[in-house]
């Protein structure tokens, strides 16, 4: 039986009073105070959740002239012939298999069309959601988040750390995934919470997302 996976901030969340739960083999915060309160706060102001357990696949190769078709996942264009695919952990194997079945060229002189690197552990992934989330990001990064449409993405310096920002609204609620190299996770989490203090930002756990009925 493989051990439970730790998200980067597990102990920091514990110290902040989070109750933990297991989620697809990962230990994650269930709630920090009370799920319903966290969800309400997110809808009213803003909430910050740790979604580092989300599967993240880095795709590169000449075959990526168009976005990869990867079923129940999201694909984000990070550059020419470079995509990031994100999905819930249970979908990982199916999506990876589907991506691997990408048809190779008949031209044998060409290299493989697609290289996949699992970067799930490379990034800490936070979800900043709520009507004040844009103002909070405005204190952390020069990215014009108002111009970032739903399902758009950008790479920026956020709280002095290179970050990938993915916009994926929770229904009507503006929401941004912030991905930073795992080792910077705690530093950036603290910086977001600090920046969001004046806007009523609170951390939320997995249960708040379930309460909203909108798993990310």
């Amino acid at each position, binding site marked *: *039986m*493989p*051990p439970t*996976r*730790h*998200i*980067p901030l597990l*102990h920091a969340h514990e110290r902040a009073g989070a109750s933990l739960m297991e989620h697809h083999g*990962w230990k994650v915060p269930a709630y920090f105070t009370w799920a319903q309160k966290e969800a309400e706060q997110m809808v009213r102001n803003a909430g910050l959740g740790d979604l580092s357990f989300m599967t993240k696949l*880095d795709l*590169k*190769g*000449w075959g990526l002239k168009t976005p990869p078709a990867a079923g129940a996942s999201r694909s984000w264009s990070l550059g020419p012939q470079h995509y990031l695919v994100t999905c819930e952990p249970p979908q990982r194997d199916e999506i990876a298999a589907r991506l691997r079945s990408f048809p190779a060229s008949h031209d044998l002189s060409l*290299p*493989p069309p697609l*290289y996949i*690197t699992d*970067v*799930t*552990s*490379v*990034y*800490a992934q936070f979800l900043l959601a709520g009507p004040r989330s844009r103002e909070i990001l*405005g*204190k952390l*990064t*020069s*990215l*014009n988040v*108002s*111009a970032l449409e739903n399902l758009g993405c950008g790479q920026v310096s956020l*709280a*002095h*750390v290179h970050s990938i920002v993915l916009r994926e609204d929770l229904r009507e609620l503006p929401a941004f995934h912030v991905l930073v*190299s*795992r*080792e*910077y*996770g*705690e*530093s*950036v989490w*603290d*910086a977001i919470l*600090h*920046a969001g*203090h*004046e806007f009523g930002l609170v951390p939320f756990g997995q249960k708040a997302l379930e309460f909203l009925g909108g798993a990310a």
Partner: protein
Amino acid sequence: MADNSDRFTFQFDGRTIEARSGDTVASALYRAGRRIFTRSFKYHRPRGLLCLAGKCPNCMMNVDGTPNVRACITPAREGMTVRHQNAYPSLENDWLSLVQRFDRLMPVGWYYKTMTHQWSWHAAESYIRQVAGLGVAPQPGGGSKDYEHAWMHAEVAVIGGGPAGLQAAVEMAHDGSPVVLIDDQPELGGHLRYQKRAGAVASALVDQLRATPSAQIISRSYCFGLYEGNLLGVVQANPHGGAIERLIHLRAKRVVIATGAYEVPFTFENNDLPGVMLSTAVQRLIHLHGIKPGERAVVVATGAPPDEVAEDLSQAGVELVSILAPSEVIAATGATHVTGLRTKSGELSCDLLVMCGQRVPDAGLLHQAGGKLVWNQDRGAFLPAELPANVSAVGEVAGAWLARAMPLPPERVSFHKRSFVCFCSDVSTADLRDAMSEGFDHIETLKRYTTLTMGPCQGRMCQLAGIAICAHETGRTMTETGVTTARPPNPSVSLGALAGPRHHPFRRTPMHDAHDQSGAAWMDMGDWKRPRYYKTASCQSEQACVEEEYRAVRERVGIIDVSTLGKLDVKGRDAGKLLDKVYTNRFSDLKPGRVRYSVLCDEAGIMLDDGTISRLADDHYFITTTTGNLDFVQQWLEWWLVGTGWDVHITNVTGGRAAVNLAGPQARDVLHALTACDLSSRAFPYMACREADVAEVPALLLRIGFVGETGWEIHFPAEYGEFLWLKLLEAGKPFDIRPFGVEAQRLLRLEKRHVIVGVDTDALSNPYEAGMAWVAKLEKPDFIGRNALSRQAAAAAEQRLVGFIMNDASLPQDGAAILVGGALAGRVTSARYSPGNGKAVGLAWVSAKSSAAGAEIEIRVNGGTARARIVEEAFYDPAGDRLRM
């Protein structure tokens, strides 16, 4: 009008001051009877409220620990602590005001005239440093409040919340375009706020703008710079309870400057006395704060009779003694406050002198953005012309409603040592005349020589007068004289606002908390937090702990967290080709399952980084870089890949992979307990790599040995970092395993003479001089740095990196000088006490002629010198047998 029912208090110099809702710090202090607000920069003359608009230097105070805060635009808050600055012991009785008695000894250009020898500067420096300057910078780390940065984007940015700015913002936001309006006052409305007849117009515009959803208003904020691409630097005061200031980087497609105009004072003797105020300041006191500014007033004005001002004064209950033209005024009289006026027709008694001065467009932003300022004789102002694209000016700043209030250049100037032009630096009309007579008669040289326009007001109070006097004295016109160049920041910005929040990013390895539990003593390596050593009950000092950790590795087994290593995953059919091109070693012929060490050199053959490269499959390599060089190495690889068309894909996986180095004679036994992988040297030799499960965690094992013992570098998914670290410690318990920190690692590697690139090498080190000729594979047809390395291989080295062992018990510091025959011959790069040798050992750069094995050198230690011997081989296991066991 201030609300009388809502009162609160704050502290000023230990006294409790009552304030009313709507008060600024200055208005509350004025109501409480304070008339001296600061002391001048050079002569420590008493200064009182002059503009009440944040444009002059006369009300700067220390507010809640922040120096140089303008009290007249800082809202008073319950419980705040305000202190005077630049006066000792008090504003009323400032000992340093004695300086003005010796003003003849401090003529204009005093520094240049007196500090002509080095000794004179040395003699005066400490005194000057003590008395010069204005506020005192707060102590680092003091206070719970922070500075903030923020970024905003808008279609249109309007700077200035007066009538023109409000009108522009309303019109621009009308179609739903995002508009941001920046205003430096506590309330919108500009001069309409205190010119009561137009008050209703202001309220209507403000209401209209507030009702426009796409408009955003940022009050109490000033714009200090308009940069390329319409980037505006804006500082917002007290954006919320936890912040002192917020620096906003505002990017707008269009910028509308509506900064209006401000009034400037007249020049006459003692024009700086408290009680001599601009008319707009008086109107502010009366209308915004409900304060009677004085008892008996004289109004000095040119042009149209200042009906409104006179009416305001009389309604406030101030007796209007007289209205005079500036040409009538000879001097204000009084010691610490105006008590009268000497005029051509006699003496007048008053306690308030109201100056209806020339209005000057606040065009600094337009000028610094590249706009031209052109003199307009009718309006008596330099007006903007030829503005940059997408920048426009509206209202008074563009010349609307302006009128020349006096002849410019003036027909007559009263040159006097106490007739001040620049209130910031105490530059008088006489100083300007003296400077021009010394040859500084161009407005730019006059500025630099006298510091005119260079103080906190950045020329707002003095620029026009300075230009006018320069034109008068030189016989030029205002156009010929021109304006001084405006540069950002204007107005001045606090260093705290520029520096931003105290947040400094840090990097933690996945095992950080486990190290904490084990008693790690932390050190910073770049942004990384790393255990320097571990404190245990058995060791009392850092040296004892390090030695215990050292012995564990040499005698039993030790484990170190090396997750900070940079890790790059390189895939693609041409990956080997790229590595051959960039690294000095060859990698296309490396067999899968093998590891090779190499260095990275630039075109000059200088060593930039080093690391191991493991081949995991034909088209898959795994690179480690030094802790601090990851980003550089990734960019370097990507740089050399550009344009090749090669199939290579580089992914930084540093954060995703935890890594430990398990080393020591019993490392194999520990690892064996957790993995089914055959760890024997036959199946898993030195410089091999294998992928295997360790405690059910998928891992990559590299058999390498930085510390000189049998060992494995284990790389595995970061989410198992703590789990596997603890598993390895548990499995190592029977062998008395010890976690070891960076200090022990540095000692262990030093005994092996393993070089740390960037510590033992610098920006001039090549592999030949560093004793690493074996890494340069010159037989490779081409790689970066090959030509330079070929030349270096053939040339005689100038210096060499050598090992040394001390002759006695002394321990040199890293960086210590090396002497040969009493002359400087090199420097120590690393030195540590080696328990294995019973003496300190180290690495040092030494001139080649003094670097022979066995040669004696002298090293600077504790102010004296100690002798050492150069050693060719490693200090420990020179044959490397222990690595291969």
